[in-house]
Structure formats: C-alpha cells, structure tokens
C-alpha cells in the first residue's frame, strides 16, 4: 500500500517552475529519499505534501487523504521536520513539546506527559527540558525538532534536510537516530537531502530531482547500475610492466584498461566482472605479474549523482 502518491505534482512561483509534474510513490514503512542540489524543488515538494502550500497543478494523496480536500486530516497523520527547526526560542524545550502535543490532539494530560518524556529521553534532552530553546546548540535544536515531529506518533514522517548545517559528529548522531526510528517505530519516512551519505545509508529508494523534475528513481544500488553501468575491476600488482598490460588487453572480455603506474594498478572495464575476473587474473599471472589485490569497484552514489546532475 502507498503512504504517499503524487500525480503530476507541480508548483510555479511566478515564472519559476519549482516542481515540474512530479509523480512518485512511497510505500508504507519505506524510507524514501528525495535527493537533489539546493533549489531542486525538494522543500517545495514536501511543503505541498504537508499541505503548507498548494500545488499549481496535479494531485497527491498522503496516507490515503487528498492534500487538497482533506488537508486537516493529512496534517494530523504527518510529522514534519521543516527546513528550519521552527522552534519557539523563548519557550523551554518542554513548553515547545507541550504546545505541539496539544496542537496535534494529545489531550489526555498523562498520555501527553509520558509521550513528551519518552521522546526527550530518547533524544537525550530530558535534563535540559526546562531550559529555553535559545540556549540550545544547533544539534540539540535539530533533535528537539525531530522529537516534535514525532510527538503525535505520526505514521508518516517528512524530514527536510535533517543533517543540514551540523558538524560530522552531530550528523552521525541524527543519522543513527533516524535509523533507529525507521527500524524501531516503522515510520514511513520521506527524507529530503542533498547529503548523499544520508540517502545511501538510510533510504531503501531514492529519487534524484533536479530543477523540479524527476531524473531517476530506484534503490541506491540500482541507481549506480543504471547510470554508471557495471562495476570495474581494480587489480593491484607488486610491479607493473608492458607485457602484463598487453596480456590483459588481448582478452576478448576486456573493453578498456586504465593504467595507474604510480600505484602499479590496472583498472579494467569488463562486460561482466563476475565471470571475467578469474580469466583476467590468470592472464596477469601467466605474464609474470604478482597480484597483491583484486577488487570489483562500484562507482559511489556521489559519482553517480554528480554525473546525473551535470548531465541535466
């Protein structure tokens, strides 16, 4: 079953086409990444899905509700981490949580207190609950904003750039938390990011968007295969010579050989790495080469992403 389904979702700001006929589907329980450079249309897409701005064209259903007709119902079942933490800095962490808990309908006092305590403890903020948010670090604010998004136990979460502007340690902390969230609480998560590491580590599927348009959708592995093709074979030798290079080039499965003399390394492009690897290694050994290591290398998602965005 789909948690999010969009059909030709479009948003224009004057003459600027921010989101251009975007159609995609996020399955229940899935962590789906919207990946793209700044200004690609990620935030606008999430804002439309969270009923914060209306689409110029197209439609979408979130949790089965139409974003145009049932906007209040959509807001009830969605938790959103906005681009900015959107916290009231003159209020304490607890007061912020308390306001949003009630705004999302947690009216039972005991249930509300338990939920706030559970989340603040989970995010290691319970000891600072009575401190004003203005005194918090960026990482703490981000954690509190995620806690706020979860306060009403929403089945669907929209997280817009959860690690933006954080130092590597805090980013890792937030990533670990998201991993725990998706595994422990089984939320459907739509994650907007331009951090490839986030997408690669957390998402089961990723949609790369650029200038408001969908470029490609698939799992991180599928994207690498689709765009950058098969992996290449990297062979490191004790010593490299022309005889070895010629021996490899003569093999019919070999399409291209790149030579890295300084590292005594060959980077070989093959039709099928898996089946051709033994033959390649044997030819190198017959030519007198002493093999130190053999690796099948996949291009990173970053290389794939940069290639795509550049082509666009």
């Amino acid at each position, binding site marked *: 079953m789909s948690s999010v389904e969009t059909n030709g979702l479009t948003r224009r700001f004057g003459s600027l086409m921010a989101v251009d006929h975007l159609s995609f589907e996020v399955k229940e329980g899935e962590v789906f990444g919207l990946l793209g450079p700044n200004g690609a249309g990620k935030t606008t897409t999430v804002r439309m899905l969270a009923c914060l701005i209306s689409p110029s064209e197209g439609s979408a259903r979130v949790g089965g509700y139409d974003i145009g007709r049932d906007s209040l119902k959509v*807001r009830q079942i969605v938790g959103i981490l906005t681009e900015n933490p959107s916290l009231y800095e003159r209020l304490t962490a607890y007061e912020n949580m308390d306001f949003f808990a009630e705004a999302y309908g947690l009216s039972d006092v005991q249930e509300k207190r338990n939920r706030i305590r559970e989340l603040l403890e989970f995010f290691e903020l319970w000891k600072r609950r009575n401190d004003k948010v203005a005194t918090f670090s960026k990482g703490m604010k981000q954690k509190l*904003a995620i806690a706020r998004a979860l306060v009403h136990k929403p089945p669907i979460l929209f997280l817009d750039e959860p690690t933006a502007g954080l130092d590597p340690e805090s980013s890792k902390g937030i990533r670990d938390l998201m991993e725990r969230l998706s595994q422990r609480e089984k939320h459907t998560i739509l994650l907007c990011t331009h951090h490839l590491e986030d997408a690669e580590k957390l998402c089961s599927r990723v949609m790369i968007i650029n200038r408001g348009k969908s470029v490609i959708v698939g799992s991180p592995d599928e994207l690498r295969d689709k765009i950058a093709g098969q992996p290449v074979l990297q062979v490191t030798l004790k010593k490299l010579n022309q005889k070895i290079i010629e021996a490899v080039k003569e093999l019919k499965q070999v399409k291209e050989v790149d030579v890295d003399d300084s590292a005594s390394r060959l980077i070989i492009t093959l039709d099928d790495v898996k089946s051709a690897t033994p033959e390649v290694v044997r030819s190198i050994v017959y030519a007198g080469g002493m093999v130190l290591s053999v690796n099948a290398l996949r291009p990173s998602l970053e290389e794939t992403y940069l290639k795509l965005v550049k082509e666009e």
Partner: protein
Amino acid sequence: MRLRIQKAMLVFRKDWREVSRNWQVILPIVVIPFMFSVLLPVLLVLIPSLAATPGTSLGGFETMIQNLPKHVQDELAGMTDQQVMVYIMSLYFFAPFFLIIPLMASSVIASDSFAGEKERKTIEALLATPISDSELFLGKILVSFIPSMMVTVVSFIIYSTVVDLFSFAIFNGRLLLPNLVWILLIFGLAPTVALASIGLTVMISAKVKGFREAQQISVILLIPILALVFGQVTGAIIFGPVVVTALIGFFAIIDLAVFKIGVKLFKREEILSKLA
C-alpha cells in the same frame, strides 16, 4: 468545519508565554496606559485645577462647553468654573483616550502575530499542525485582545481612583467615577473597537513579510479613533449613553465582518508561498 475554542486558546497560551517573556513588547503595554490613566490627567487637569484659585477662567474649554448637549449643560448647573473644568475634563475629555489604550497596547502584539513568526522562522511548524485557519486566526486575535483589555480595565480602575481622589476634595465628597457612560465605554466600546483593530492588524500581519511593515500599516487604523478624540475635544461628538451604545452596536457588526473576512482571506497555503 466547526471552530474549536480550546485550540484557539492553545495558540493564545503559547503566544502569551512568548510575549510575556519579551520586555520590548511588555514595556509599551505597561507604560502607555500609565501615561494615559495617571500621568496626563494628573499633570493636565487635576493639579492645575487644585492650584487654581476659585474663579479661574475656563480658557480654551469655553467652546467645548458651549457645544455640549443640553443634558450635559444641565449637569454643570451650579458648579464653579474649577468644578466644571475637572468634571468635563475627567468625564468627557479623557474618555476617548481609553479607546486608544487597547489599540496601542495590542498594536505591537497584533503586528507581531504572524509577521513575527515569519521573521523568526517558526511559522512553518505552526502552519503544519492540524489547527484550522479560523482557530489560528482567533488565537492570534485573543493574544492581543485579552492583555490589551486587561490593561484597559486596570487603567480604568487606576484612573477612576485618581479622579475620585481629586473629585472627593473638589466636589465636597462626591465621587465622579465610575458612571454608566464609562462602564459602557470600558466594557462595551473599548473591546469592540479593539477587536476590529486587532482583527485588521492580524490580517495585515499575515499578508506582509515582517513585523515593522505590519506595524507601520496598522498605525493607519488609529486614524478613525483619533477622529473620535478630536470630535469629543471639539464637542462635535459627546459620549453619552446613547452615542456609546450606538457605537458599540456599530463596532460589533464591524467585528463580525472583520472576523469573517479575515478567516476567508487568511490562507495558510499563501503565507509560505510568498516567503518562498
């Protein structure tokens, strides 16, 4: 969809917590009413009238007194000039200022209502909640209305005490306030005028990008009230029970219209679109 008052009150409580911790907002709310209810009456009317000898000229107030309706002229019969001056100034001259108090006290909070949230980048999470447009709009009105009315009522109590302290001496034990007109003014006209002004300011605040812009535009709303002040000073409009009741009715209709139009024009989907 029906309007849930508890959701509007939730927005009110959250905003009031924020406002009450901001001295830049609280200070004008406290200082301006103090000026109108204590400082100006004491400096302009009561001390000069006590210092003046019997037979002091009414000076510039002659015209105002001449323009007063007959029933007010009747009230003045048999009073000394000193008593006439204190009576007119305390009961009629300062009356319209008490319409300005709630307007000035609410102006900062109402201008800040949505524009401040936009500036502080807190608006997105608020708009993402399942609080309806009308509940949000009402909550933002209440956070300006309730404190400004509390300030107005407290100012009225202080003003009445100050006036009565002086009138006790000048009118041989007679207390001038409260009277029917002032009760209608403070508990009927001031709230209805304030609601109309706050509603319009909140609407402006939702449309503009920043607090300053909202406040500058909302100052225009003071003009009709200033017209009432000048009308009263020149004797063109005198706040009697009938006039005040008619004005309450008039502003109550305006309030309803402002709320209905405000909710209709308040489109949360447009707020972020304009910021994008």
